């Protein structure tokens, strides 16, 4: 009843079928010879053979020779996943002299031999899939990859050490970089640390030079106190909207002399100081920390009386000789064009309140590790003097590892860095207070260079390491020594009994987890994330800095917990990959876009609103829909919805899929 579907020219179809052994990966579970034998009986098949390593040079040459020798014009390779070697075999097909898109791959390894246990069934499945491919490949058309120009600029999101390193690496190659940071200053978490393990380098000393280098770099446009609001476009051609929050300070005039801060009506800080993690207060007008970059103050609209509609004599305005304060400032939106994006948004520490038995927030002398970093650092609120909230100088301190990590009730993953920073803090606390330090660990993880040696040094310094997951921290004494102390109850799994260790101060080494808004951020950049919420790399081992979205790269802890050396290395790698994109100047787009056939299009407008990329418009003169190939990403949504079947998607045409369905099922 159906009129014959549209055939593309009647050239004789000559198919070459190659099934790979992949050493034993496939051959062990699939009788590849039998499959090749079966396929040779199928229509249009001229050559059908099996070979040990199709992806090897020799394997590829096999294809090239057979194309020439047997005048083949279609190639089917049954081997691993097309996501792995489709490009390899298309190149080989091209070297053979025919269009690369006449090549089609069948996945009989990841979807076949590796996942099945019955050799007969796996072989039957391989034959069925082969028959489906032979059926479909005759409809393949010659296609060309499209080239799109790449804007030679990059956007780096997040101004921690990851973002700083990536921005500098890129900028040093002469490329223009936009570095966008949400906080008023760059530096991220690292700027808050006192010393860094294992060398006990002072964090500020190694970080601030890089921060000023960023500020001074001619190729870097630094936007702090700003957030990316939206991003459109595709690899090489991203249009980004950045919201620059109002600082109420004119950035050109302010030199960071802090006169305004001194003269502010609030003589004492009235709001928690985020930089000091709430250990101290700050005024409405403030500079996050002395070495902040850019060296500017910012007025917090929530805390400032004037900005809250109250009347204030604005002593800050009078104090500023350079009249840099401007209360009428409003947020501004910047529109920029970039070719690549490096996401370096960092991490958040675990909120220990989620473990009520550790008493954070209930007992004043229980601290998080980040709070202790600010306590021991000389530019901290107590200038390095370790004194507890209840005023005592601790003589006995307990450091609890893995708070929130490696825990089925909270986060299951190990945060990689807590053992090392716990030991560093043990060293610093002992150095500052001479206190007896107890570390409660499950397993000490010290894998980096010089890490194990640092652990030995800590033991030599007399720190106690007790192996056991801390059950509870309580101020209820059971014996006299526990009066007025915080007792840590833990099962010492090496000693084999439950111990109760009274201490003055407890440090909770909280783990690392994704930011609260990581879901929104990843949706904005169209990347996916793992179950825990860390952004998902393209391949866990072989592509750790790129993502499944071309042109978007990852650096630092947003991709998963890691220490500073790994973060810096990853930032460099991300910058390098982004550079390859920006340097080539163009990017090849897959040809699997969709095309409207005007003969069959009735102009019914069904497809227009379905395209998320607004690639389909209606030519009202001719009354037909038209797809802009540049904007079309090749998802095929419109093809499935078109009521007249007037839209075709290259490489995924209806006739190809119908044929594949019919032939796969016709076998078994």
């Amino acid at each position: 009843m159906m009129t014959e579907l549209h055939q593309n020219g009647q050239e004789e179809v000559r198919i070459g079928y190659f099934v790979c052994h992949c050493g034993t990966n496939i051959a062990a579970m699939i009788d590849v010879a039998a499959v090749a034998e079966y396929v040779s009986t199928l229509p249009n098949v001229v050559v059908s053979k099996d070979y040990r390593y199709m992806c090897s040079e020799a394997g590829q040459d096999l294809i090239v020779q057979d194309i020439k020798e047997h005048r083949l014009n279609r190639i089917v390779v049954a081997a691993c996943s097309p996501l792995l070697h489709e490009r390899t075999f298309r190149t080989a097909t091209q070297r053979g002299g025919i269009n690369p898109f006449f090549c089609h791959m069948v996945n009989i390894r990841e979807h076949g031999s590796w996942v099945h246990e019955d050799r007969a069934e796996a072989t039957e499945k391989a034959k069925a899939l082969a028959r489906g491919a032979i059926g479909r490949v005759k409809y393949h058309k010659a296609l060309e990859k499209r080239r799109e120009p790449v804007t030679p600029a990059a956007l780096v999101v997040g101004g921690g050490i990851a973002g700083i390193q990536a921005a500098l690496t890129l900028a040093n190659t002469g490329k223009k970089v936009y570095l966008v940071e949400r906080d008023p200053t760059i530096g991220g978490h690292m700027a808050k640390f006192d010393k860094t393990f294992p060398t006990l380098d002072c964090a500020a000393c190694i970080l601030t030079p890089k921060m000023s280098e960023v500020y001074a770099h001619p190729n870097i446009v630094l936007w702090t106190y700003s957030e990316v609001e939206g991003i459109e476009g595709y690899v090489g051609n991203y249009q980004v909207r950045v919201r620059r929050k109002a600082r109420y300070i004119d950035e050109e005039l302010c030199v960071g002399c802090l006169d305004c801060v001194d003269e502010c009506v609030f003589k004492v800080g009235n709001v928690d100081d985020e930089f000091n993690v709430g250990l101290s207060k700050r005024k409405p007008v403030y500079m996050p920390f002395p070495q902040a970059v850019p060296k500017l103050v910012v007025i917090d609209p929530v805390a400032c009386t004037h900005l809250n509609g109250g009347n204030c004599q604005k002593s800050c305005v009078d104090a500023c000789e350079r009249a840099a304060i401007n209360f009428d400032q409003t947020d501004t939106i910047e529109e920029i064009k970039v070719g690549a994006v490096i996401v370096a948004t960092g991490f958040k520490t675990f909120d220990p309140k989620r473990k009520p038995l550790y008493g954070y927030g209930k007992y004043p002398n229980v601290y998080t590790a980040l709070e202790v970093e600010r306590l021991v650092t000389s530019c901290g609120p107590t200038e390095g003097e370790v004194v507890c909230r209840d005023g005592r100088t601790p003589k006995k301190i307990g450091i609890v590892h893995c708070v929130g990590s490696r825990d089925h009730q909270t986060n299951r993953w190990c945060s990689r860095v807590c053992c090392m920073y716990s030991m560093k803090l043990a060293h610093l606390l002992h150095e500052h207070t001479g206190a007896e330090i107890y570390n409660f660990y499950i397993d000490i993880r010290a894998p980096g260079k010089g890490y194990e040696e640092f652990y030995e040094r800590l033991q030599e310094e007399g720190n106690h390491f007790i192996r056991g997951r801390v059950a509870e921290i309580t101020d209820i004494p059971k014996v006299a020594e526990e009066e007025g102390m915080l007792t840590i109850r833990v099962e010492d799994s090496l000693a084999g009994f439950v111990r109760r260790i009274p201490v003055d101060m407890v440090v909770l080494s909280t783990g690392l987890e994704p930011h609260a808004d990581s879901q929104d951020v990843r949706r904005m950049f169209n990347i996916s994330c793992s179950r825990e919420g860390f952004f998902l790399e393209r391949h866990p081992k072989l592509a750790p800095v790129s993502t499944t979205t071309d042109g978007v790269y990852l650096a630092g802890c947003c991709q998963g917990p890691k220490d500073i050396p790994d973060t810096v290395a990853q930032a460099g790698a991300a910058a390098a990959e982004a550079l390859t994109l920006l340097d080539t100047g163009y990017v090849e787009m897959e040809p699997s876009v969709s095309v409207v056939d005007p003969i069959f299009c009735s102009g019914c407008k069904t497809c227009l609103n379905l395209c998320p990329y607004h690639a389909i418009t209606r030519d009202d003169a001719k009354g037909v829909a038209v797809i802009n190939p540049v904007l079309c990403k090749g998802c095929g949504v419109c093809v499935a919805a078109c009521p007249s079947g007037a839209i075709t998607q290259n490489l995924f045409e209806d006739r190809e899929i119908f044929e594949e369905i019919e032939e796969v099922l016709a076998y078994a």
Partner: protein
Amino acid sequence: MPEDTQPRILAFFCNWCTYTAADLAGVSRMKYAATSRVVRVMCSGRIDPQFVLSAFAKGADGVLIGGCHPGDCHYISGNTKCLRRHRLLKRMLADMGIEPERLRLEWISASEGDRVKTVINEMTADLKRLGPLKLPERCVAWDVEAIDEEPDHAEAVAKEAVHA
């Protein structure tokens, strides 16, 4: 066509999420029934309900559609269109006597390799319980103009017509 009892599942997997998850299941050497035949599409939004019907008409016992979780679609909202079509297609297939377990839509992200294994094994068990659909054989039987009285004559004629 050998008379086997293994049900056959025609699976449409989206390239970015479920197909990658199936690859991950392979790399992790997870084991599941050899009943699925995967057709790769760029997005679950590309899956035309005609493909689902064609799969049943050509002999599939079950159809499995795999796409990205809502909000994860590589093309922003392709999976939403797939869900819209699926909701009515399920109802229409039920009206046409096809048991709900035969068509299954699963959101499986790139990191959920084990989900692919579980779904395919579950679906295989369901389909074994339901028994084969055998639509091609039925179509042939429907066209047999059985004249005489024996009730299963049509089936017999159909069977050997199929194997002819």
